[in-house]
């Protein structure tokens, strides 16, 4: 009987041989330079307009712009609330002499994750996870796999562990690639730069009582840890889909559309509170660290963690039950 170690190694090697990880790395290597360049252009453009590199000037201009947009009658009240909170936070940064967007590779790495956590990184996870079981059907290897004298739950568990290993690797690789590439343009310093966290939102006011400073490296570690949790949840759900749907392409389609539906919902559903029970709208865990207002009312860190946890456990249950009972012809 094969040990669990051997089984996991076997599964990981299968994924490595399918070159899925390289596809993910390649995607990152192509897209990160594009994002870096976009950020670089935005910085240049800002400097050209204001004629100064002083960050305080550009934060003040940003506060002014938002303040003025507030007086527009065409903006929905929910967005105005978000904008007011944004203003208060930026003012807080100004008052405490901390640049919210210090221009360096580390800040880019931080911003990149907070922008990528709800859609981009989950999509990368789906690339790996979508064919982890269904790929065996496509290749016809499922019969070989299931006729071996190994209990089915052990096979599935080894696949799951392998998948989790890949999730960790992808999250960390994303950070490394973002840092390495953006550093060429923005410089590699900034690990110790202070970041403010602990903003608590009560109604329309920002409670700054708990605000404290973290060095940027620690903030990034927390941010990536939270994203990792979201990615594990995506992996579990995608894992279930891979068991249920035998075609890899169809399974991938299901996951991609679910994730994209999440971004659409967060933009639209601020009036529909029950939307918060969908896993897709809970992926933006990094927002709780940054202290931005969740787009759907009723979301909090505990709620999101619990919701994602329940979705993950339920998905795994379904996956195991179906996989163990399934007949293979």
């Amino acid at each position, binding site marked *: 009987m094969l040990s669990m170690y051997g089984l996991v*190694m076997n599964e*990981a*090697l299968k994924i*490595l*041989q399918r070159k899925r990880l390289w596809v993910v790395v390649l995607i990152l290597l192509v897209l990160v330079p594009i994002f870096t360049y976009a950020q670089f252009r935005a910085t240049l453009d800002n400097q050209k*307009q*204001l*004629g*100064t*590199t*002083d*960050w*305080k*000037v550009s*934060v*003040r*201009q940003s506060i*002014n712009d938002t*303040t*003025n947009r507030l*007086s527009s009658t065409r903006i929905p009240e929910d967005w105005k609330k978000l904008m007011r909170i944004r203003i208060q936070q930026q003012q807080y940064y*100004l008052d*405490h*002499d*901390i*640049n919210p967007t*210090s221009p360096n590779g580390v800040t880019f790495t931080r911003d990149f994750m907070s922008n990528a956590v709800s859609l981009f990184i989950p999509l990368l996870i789906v690339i790996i996870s979508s064919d982890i079981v269904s790929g065996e059907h496509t290749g016809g290897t499922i019969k070989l796999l299931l006729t071996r004298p190994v209990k089915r739950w052990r096979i599935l568990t080894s696949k799951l562990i392998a998948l*989790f*290993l*890949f999730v*960790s*690797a992808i*999250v*960390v690789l994303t950070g490394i690639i973002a840092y390495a590439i953006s550093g060429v343009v923005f410089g590699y310093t900034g690990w*110790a*730069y*202070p970041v403010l*966290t*602990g903003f*608590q939102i009560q109604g329309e006011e920002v409670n700054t009582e*708990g*605000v*404290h*400073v*973290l*060095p940027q490296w*620690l903030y990034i*570690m*927390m*941010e*990536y*840890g*939270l994203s*990792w*949790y979201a990615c594990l949840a995506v992996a579990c759900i995608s894992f279930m889909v891979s068991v249920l749907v035998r075609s890899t392409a169809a399974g991938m389609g299901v996951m991609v559309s679910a994730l994209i539906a999440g971004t659409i919902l967060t933009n639209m559903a601020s009036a529909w509170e029950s939307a918060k029970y969908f896993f897709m709208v809970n992926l933006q865990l990094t927002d*709780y*660290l940054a202290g931005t207002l969740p787009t759907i009312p009723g979301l909090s*860190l*505990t709620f999101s*963690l619990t919701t994602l946890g329940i979705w993950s456990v339920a998905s795994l249950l379904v996956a195991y039950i179906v996989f163990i009972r399934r007949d293979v012809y």
Partner: protein
Amino acid sequence: MSSQASWRLFAVFSLASTLALAVGLYLGITDILSPSATGEWKTDKGTEETGKPKVNAVQIVALGDSLTRGTGDGAGLGYVGNLRARLSEATGQQAYVLNHGVNGYKTADLLRDLQQKEDIRRTLRQADIVTLSIGGNDLFNAGGAEEVNPEISQKRLPGAVERYKEIVKIIDSLNPKAKILYMGLYNAFADLSNAQESYKVVERWNSETSAVLYRYPHAIFVPTDDLFRVDGKKYLSSDHFHPNQAGYRRIGERMAEVIR
């Protein structure tokens, strides 16, 4: 690379990643749920010396209300944008604008900003030209859907002039060299039945603020009321209060004329 070696490499990398991420997750959750005020406040005072734009450039700092903001201008320039365009055209120098205008600002709001917001004070110290528009909301806009009532406006006027004096004094004390261009009020209510009364308010405000500015050698009152006397509607935007694109252009051109 043999499959054994690549597995080992991968396994070590992902296990290390998993450990780091799990620690991060734990720290993140505890930090969000019970924020502890630890860590020292290392701050960034900003780049004072590079804050000043390159030599051979003109820095315009715009203060005031929606008129400074350019509300109503379809081109999005406002009088400040027009002034900037004319200036760089005429002098061949780059002109930069920092626009601190906020819709609905009254003299009290601007005064508070000038007293309290250190970053605004800093930009003023580095300015070559300061433009200013304020007072219209003090006199004619109480925030609600209020009828234009010249009598109430007359009552509010003395207090607003007092604050106006303070505002100009602060700007001058921060930067005695910069030119201060104040955009005089115009009467946007000339088509209402009480036009005569509202003209009196505008006239009184303009003469009192103009008198304030004469005390400072670099402060200039730029009249705008005459620009809206003939066929005024042509230069007002659809809200019947703010200038439109053509209106702002005329104001910007006039300001550029004044300091050329």
